[in-house]
């Protein structure tokens, strides 16, 4: 079921060499993209981070990961994956900042969530 509604545009890019995320209980999601039309007036059109159901700044990512990690059973805490659902029009600057935050809290396993499709369609 849907557990959080999207506040950001989230058209994922395509890729072919993808792996399935098999175990849903081991995944923490981070959404990145431009705020959708109804939020664009308040939050602008620059890509933003969405954690759970609200917008967040880059420096909140670390504490979010730690909080989510603490919610999981102890045996899973070391095998968590962070799924980055990034809109294909986002810039790498924001992603680089997030990657930096993830490294700080030792959440090193990431999955760039994509659709299954020809990667060269991304260039259009």
């Amino acid at each position, binding site marked *: *079921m*849907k557990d959080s509604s999207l506040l950001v545009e989230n058209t*994922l*890019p*395509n*890729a*072919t*060499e*993808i*792996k*399935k*995320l*098999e*175990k*849903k209980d081991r*995944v923490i999601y981070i959404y990145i993209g431009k705020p959708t039309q109804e939020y664009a007036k308040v939050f602008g059109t620059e890509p933003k981070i969405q954690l759970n159901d609200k917008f967040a700044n880059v420096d909140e990512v670390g504490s979010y990961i730690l909080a989510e990690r603490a919610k999981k059973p102890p045996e899973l805490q070391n095998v968590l*994956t962070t*799924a980055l*659902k*990034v*809109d*294909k*029009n*986002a*810039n*790498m*600057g924001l*992603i*680089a900042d997030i*990657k*930096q935050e*993830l*490294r*700080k809290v*030792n*959440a*090193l*396993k*990431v*999955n*760039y*969530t*994509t*659709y*299954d499709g020809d*990667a*060269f369609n*991304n*260039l259009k």
Partner: protein
Amino acid sequence: MPRRKGAPEVNAGSMADIAFLLLIFFLVTTTIETDAGLDRMLPPMEPPDEDVIIKQKNIFTVNINKNGQLLVEDDLMNLKDLRTAAISFLENGADGSCSYCKGKKDPASSDNPTKAIISLKNDRETKYSIYITVQNELVGAYNELRNREAQRLYNRDFTEMESEYLNPETPSNVRDELKDKVKNIQDMFPQKLSEAETSTN
């Protein structure tokens, strides 16, 4: 008042409508999550204790600028050629220790697959979609080589073996058997993809 015979009948005429409405409701509210993507590991925060000296020829540099153009080993390259270039770098095998490599053994390129490192750099203004395409091509290069070796040794694709191994529904005896094979192929072409911090200018 006459006694009623048997249990009273429930009017179930609208049952089908109710079931139909429920079906529509759940169809509309359920989103099918996309749950596949490119798996990557970030480098740990602490730098390694000792500085490892890596020969320049063992590093394959890929630079993406803010316009989405590729600079591979200091030459401009089309994205479509990246996969082939990465493959020929990875299996170059200049020192001859790699028996399964089919590369050109060019002394100016990588020694063997275990030493070959791909270094990916990008600008802060690079589009995410371009970055994913490049990542996809590089992972694709590894997968192509791994598939080739898996076909030779076990007559099946590595990607297929790996996804069966990672699938929790696979019986454990099958998984144990696959584990060694997957590990073996991974060791033949270890994925060494380094992502330095994004350049600021």
